[in-house]
């Protein structure tokens, strides 16, 4: 069974540009989470999807970030326009069902905004 996969693995963009990150969760996993680790600090929650619905987006830093999960399968996280402080590693995680506690993480997308 394939794990959680994220694309791209690395992205370097200029300030003001747009970047779209993609996450493919484990097939059948209803719960999908986005997290971010900035400058070697702790990993911080961004948002949580249950199928195609946003369950909790309290961690989204501002309206430059837009997450979608059309059809309840893969998810995208768009940053537009990107700022220098958006640099970091963006992780996606999926969990099979509410009540199942182990979250499976993707390898992350390292975003560098210059």
């Amino acid at each position, binding site marked *: 069974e394939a794990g959680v996969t994220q694309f791209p693995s690395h992205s370097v963009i200029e300030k003001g540009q747009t970047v779209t990150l993609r996450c493919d969760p484990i097939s059948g996993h209803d719960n999908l989470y986005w997290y971010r680790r900035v400058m070697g600090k702790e990993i*911080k*929650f961004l948002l949580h999807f*249950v199928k195609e619905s946003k369950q909790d987006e309290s961690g989204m830093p501002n309206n430059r970030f837009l997450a979608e999960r059309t059809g309840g399968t893969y998810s995208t996280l768009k940053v537009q326009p990107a700022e220098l402080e958006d640099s970091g590693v963006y*992780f996606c995680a999926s969990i099979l069902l509410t*009540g199942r*506690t*182990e*979250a499976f*993480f993707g*390898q992350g997308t390292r975003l560098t905004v210059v």
Partner: protein
Amino acid sequence: GESVGLHLPTLSVQEGDNSIINCAYSNSASDYFIWYKQESGKGPQFIIDIRSNMDKRQGQRVTVLLNKTVKHLSLQIAATQPGDSAVYFCAEKFRPAGTALIFGKGTTLSVSS
């Protein structure tokens, strides 16, 4: 070598030693705790978990201790190996299901041969 007490951002040990990584969690209402290991270029990987109705849980070479009185969590790794070198994160949940993980500050463990 081993370290107890306060959280340290880095920990260096010799192969074969026991390691102790500490974490202070934030919410007294948290009832589920997990340790993750993150190797370079990879995402966090589940190691072991513990519920708040327990104070100790053992896995293979790893033990997690929970002290709810002082909101402290620790991960003990027995006979540390070079392959254990990674960043270790503790995480907490307010409920077992359906809520996000709140991660602590990571500890970078370096194991030398």
